[in-house]
């Protein structure tokens, strides 16, 4: 009896259930043979690599042959591709979907999302662009922000986003960046070039000629692990030689830094402790010694520089402040004993000295001054343009200093609208607002639309931005003072982000589109970065995971909404573009060497298909080169880019701007807040430095589970502090601590280390922001330093970020610690 009833159930069930049962997720397929896997070539900011792909999965990653010093972060690549934080489907914020731009924006941050099909998501994106251009205008759309994207010249996501949006309408752009904001604005006035991104004197010449090398706030051994292009770490060979020279005593390397850096420990060199943010005072003391002991090169100054007299009058106390900048005066500020300052000045003047400046000291309030003062010191030493002498601002970045091959590199997917074509909305009326804003002031711009600020000798009027589009860039990592950002974000009607992992920017957006990583698409790039050592084929390792797509694909589809997808991709598909960039590069490299045999080009590159099969083309090593040698040899004909063509120790042009925070020559100015006796150091005695991370590229790779496990403390970002500070606050190594100041609070894991002096703590930037909730002041559960940093322009000249001007206090965290939400997707908010 029961059997029949059961069969009856099956019958009844089949009837009604049929409509409730979907078509199923499986199809029939022949049993695939398990292939043993194939080795492919790929590349990333962490290094060029070979990857074994087996059964449609990346099974193994090993460094590229030419990379002799691979970084251990390469082990995080698999963690990055398959990381749980991947954005898997197009998602839209529920509140925004329901009420669009009139919805409750204060919930933006940890809100609830709903999945969309790609068509629905792109339609929404297009509708919003249309609404902004028609209801408002180009002043309301900000799509200028760019970041470190991923390597690859075809799929450079910033280019794709900006080209597609530009084909639709004009928008607010940005100038400057977070890495060298102050340096790239001041140095053109002083040395006639941005300097920070220029090729430097070749390492072999430094190793041969320099007697003293000064690392000023510079940690190359840590920062050279990553590069703008597919890195092959050629600088490390030279660092190894430098280490040997230090050991045998033929070169003295001195690290001027409050902290014992990774480079100093690797080289085993000396350290000169200096109070944070007091570099200018220290250098003024040195200048005073050089001048008054006649150790400076007057002849060099007469032939190559202008404006030295005004500056030296300031050092001698003849300027309006009337203070003589003696080493004793400097000691009170920078904490370096006066005798040590004199000794150091004499050492630099004694023999060939190479000054290597890091970028951290210009990322503070008045960040222009230390860079300007560095150039003035180098001018007084008179060794600019000599091999192994002078000053460089970039030897810690993307293998600057490795001789470049001189070959031509491949271009990229176009970022602008094609010549002769106009956007759908050709309205260029910014209604009095400036169309380009200094990038570090974008939050000021959101909070005070219409306000006018001074910037680099001109005036910038903030546009009233209503919509932002971010592609492959994580402004919630870049920018300072997250609580202030939350207020600013409440004013935005729509935020669209295209990325591959759920970082803070995605969670503060309304529309999130999943891009695939660089390992899920074909591309081409150079390897060796500044050494431009060769061209690398970035083979597609696996298909895009889940519903993610390449930026090329996404924005072609977006342009289909207004019928211009053919024009967008110029009729080429992905491989078409890879081949086009390769062929153009090959053509540019066919520089005719007028040898009798005709087409014998200096950089012969094989035909595309052969290149793609082999995976790379090697241009060979470059020749040694000395920066500023041509200027030293003929200052008139090879004039610098300064207004006068000479080194400008004091700049009349800047003097003419009449800024109180950036005068006509480098000056010492007290900061808004400064540890070691500076303002506010009574309430918050510890200086927080947010340097570039050791185990990440900024915020990239923080989502890689395995790699983060190697440094996280109780699942939180580690905060390094000195034994004395820890003991004072009863903190043991490995404790959970709360770090706070007037601007915000966060949790971090304490790491007590004697590399750090009292009063100095370090939280590496790039830690993912994970607030408990979207409320202002909410506790950041993972430990992103930008929860505490100060959002203030360096000065009216550069208006650059001042992240390293930041004082905090630390205390042991009591009670039950909330779970880490940095990597969690959006958690529920009470509806």
């Amino acid at each position, binding site marked *: 009896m*029961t*059997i029949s009833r*059961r*069969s009856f*159930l*099956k019958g*009844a*069930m*089949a009837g*009604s*259930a049929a*409509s*409730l*049962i*979907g078509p*199923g*997720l*499986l*199809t*029939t*397929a*022949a*049993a*695939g043979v*398990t292939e043993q896997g194939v080795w492919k070539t790929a590349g990333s900011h962490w290094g060029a690599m070979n990857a074994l792909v087996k*059964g449609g*999965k990346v099974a193994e990653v090993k460094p590229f042959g030419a990379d002799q010093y691979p970084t251990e972060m390469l082990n995080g690549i*698999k*963690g990055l591709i*398959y*990381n*749980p*934080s*991947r*954005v*898997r*489907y197009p*998602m839209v914020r*529920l509140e925004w*979907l*329901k009420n669009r731009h009139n919805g409750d924006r204060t919930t933006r941050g940890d809100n*609830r*999302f*709903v*999945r969309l099909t790609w068509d629905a998501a792109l339609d929404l994106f297009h509708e919003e662009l249309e609404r902004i251009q028609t209801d408002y205008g180009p002043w309301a759309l900000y799509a200028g922000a760019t970041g470190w994207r991923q390597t690859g010249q075809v799929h450079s996501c910033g280019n794709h986003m900006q080209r597609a949006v530009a084909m639709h309408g004009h928008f607010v752009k940005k100038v400057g960046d977070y890495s060298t904001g102050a340096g790239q604005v001041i140095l053109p006035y002083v040395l006639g070039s941005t300097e920070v991104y220029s090729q430097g004197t070749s390492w072999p010449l430094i190793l041969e000629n320099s007697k003293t090398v000064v690392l000023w706030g510079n940690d190359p051994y840590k920062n050279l692990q990553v590069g703008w292009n597919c890195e092959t770490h050629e600088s490390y060979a030279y660092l190894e030689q430098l280490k040997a020279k230090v050991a045998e005593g033929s070169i003295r390397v001195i690290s001027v830094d409050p902290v014992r850096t990774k480079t100093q420990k690797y080289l085993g060199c000396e350290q000169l402790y200096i109070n944070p943010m007091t570099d200018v005072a220290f250098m003024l003391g040195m200048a005073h010694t050089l001048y008054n002991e006649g150790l400076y090169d007057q002849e060099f100054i007469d032939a190559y520089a202008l404006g030295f007299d005004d500056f030296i009058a300031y050092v001698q106390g003849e300027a309006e402040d009337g203070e003589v900048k003696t080493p004793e005066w400097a000691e009170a500020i920078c904490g370096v004993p006066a005798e040590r300052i004199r000794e150091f000045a004499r050492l630099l003047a004694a023999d060939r000295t190479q000054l290597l400046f890091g970028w951290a000291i210009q990322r503070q309030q008045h960040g222009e001054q230390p860079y300007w003062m560095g150039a003035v010191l180098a001018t007084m030493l008179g060794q600019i343009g000599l091999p192994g002498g002078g000053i460089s601002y970039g030897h810690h970045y993307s293998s600057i200093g490795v001789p470049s091959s001189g070959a031509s590199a491949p271009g990229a997917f176009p970022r602008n609208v094609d010549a002769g074509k106009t956007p759908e909305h050709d309205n260029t009326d910014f209604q009095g607002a400036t169309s380009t804003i200094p990038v570090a002031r974008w939050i000021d711009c959101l909070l005070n639309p219409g306000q006018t600020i001074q910037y680099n000798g001109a005036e910038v009027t903030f546009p009233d931005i209503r919509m932002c589009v971010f592609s492959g860039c994580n402004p919630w990592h870049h920018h300072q003072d997250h609580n202030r950002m939350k207020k600013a974000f409440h004013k935005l009607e729509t935020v669209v982000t295209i990325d591959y992992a*759920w970082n803070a920017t995605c969670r503060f957006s309304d529309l999130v589109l999943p891009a695939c990583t660089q390992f899920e698409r074909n591309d081409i790039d150079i390897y060796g970065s500044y050494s431009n050592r060769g061209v690398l084929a970035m083979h597609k390792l696996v298909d895009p*995971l*889940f*519903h993610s797509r390449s930026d090329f694909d996404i924005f072609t589809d977006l342009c289909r909404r207004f019928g211009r997808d053919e024009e967008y991709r110029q009729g080429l598909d992905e491989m078409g573009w890879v081949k086009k960039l390769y062929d153009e590069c090959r053509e540019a490299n066919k520089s005719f060497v007028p040898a009798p045999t005709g087409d014998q080009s200096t950089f012969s590159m094989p035909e595309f298909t052969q290149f793609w099969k082999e995976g790379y083309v090697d241009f060979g090593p470059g020749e040694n080169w000395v920066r500023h040698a041509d200027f030293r040899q003929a200052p008139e004909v090879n004039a610098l880019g300064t207004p006068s063509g000479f080194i400008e120790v004091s700049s009349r042009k800047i003097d003419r701007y009449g800024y109180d925070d950036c005068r006509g020559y480098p000056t010492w100015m007290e900061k808004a807040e400064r540890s070691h006796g500076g303002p506010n150091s009574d309430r918050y005695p510890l200086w927080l430095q947010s340097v570039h991370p050791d185990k990440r590229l900024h915020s990239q790779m923080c989502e890689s*589970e*395995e790699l983060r496990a190697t440094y996280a403390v109780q699942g939180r970002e580690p905060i390094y502090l000195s034994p004395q500070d820890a003991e004072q606050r009863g903190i043991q190594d490995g404790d959970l601590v709360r770090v706070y100041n007037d601007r915000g609070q966060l949790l971090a894991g304490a790491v007590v280390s004697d590399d750090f002096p009292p009063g100095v703590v370090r939280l590496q930037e790039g830690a993912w922001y994970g607030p408990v909730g979207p409320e202002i002041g909410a506790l950041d559960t993972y430990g992103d330093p930008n929860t505490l940093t100060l959002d203030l322009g360096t000065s009216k000249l550069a208006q650059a970020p001042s992240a390293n001007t930041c004082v905090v206090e630390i205390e042991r965290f009591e009670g039950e610690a909330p779970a880490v*939400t940095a*990597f*969690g*997707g*959006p*958690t*529920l908010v*009470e*509806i």
Partner: protein
Amino acid sequence: MRESLASSAAADSQTGGGAPLDGASEGLLCRWLSTLLGAELDEPTLARYRQGEAAPLLGYLCEAHGLDEQAGRIEAALSRLVMFTTPRLELAADFAELFLADARSGAPPYASLYLDERQGFLGAPAERMEARLAEAGFAVKREVGEPADHLAVMLDYLGHRLERLAETEGAEALALRRELATFLEHELCSWLPRLVARSAEVRTASDLYPALLALTEAYCRRLAERLRLA
């Protein structure tokens, strides 16, 4: 119609549920669960659920497997949907919150995230599942865009295999029965409890999906026992 089913189920459970397994019905049940866990509900399907069209399925679960508590929880959740102005959207948001958003919060339905020590996608469980699918002559549809160790995919596979079981008897059926039991124990019941626990932590608007996960976990356990028994 519902009362009569409940009573017979009660009768049946007293006898220790020794009745032989009906592969076809179980297969349908698995493919129903796979559909619910595979994608959000659209407007018409939700309307049918709210009109009680799932009753026979729920009834069969109570009567054949004694899962009255879990089935009741689903029905309660369905009835409470009336509170929402836009129930479909709220359910879609719950679905996203649990399964689609960042896989570190919520309750991502992928075996690799729980069984593989690397805690990433496409771990060893995914590879095992892919091999198992290939062996049975199946593959995940391209447009689905999910790895093989997604819960919905595994349930769909189970559905097909159970229907296959219904068409076999004797030694072959016994072997298949044992194979499915091991599959359920190793590849599903090993992580479903943790999935259910994580889904409980997430404050969703409606209890439907957490209830559904609890039901699925209980059903798999019961199914594994039944397969071992007979």
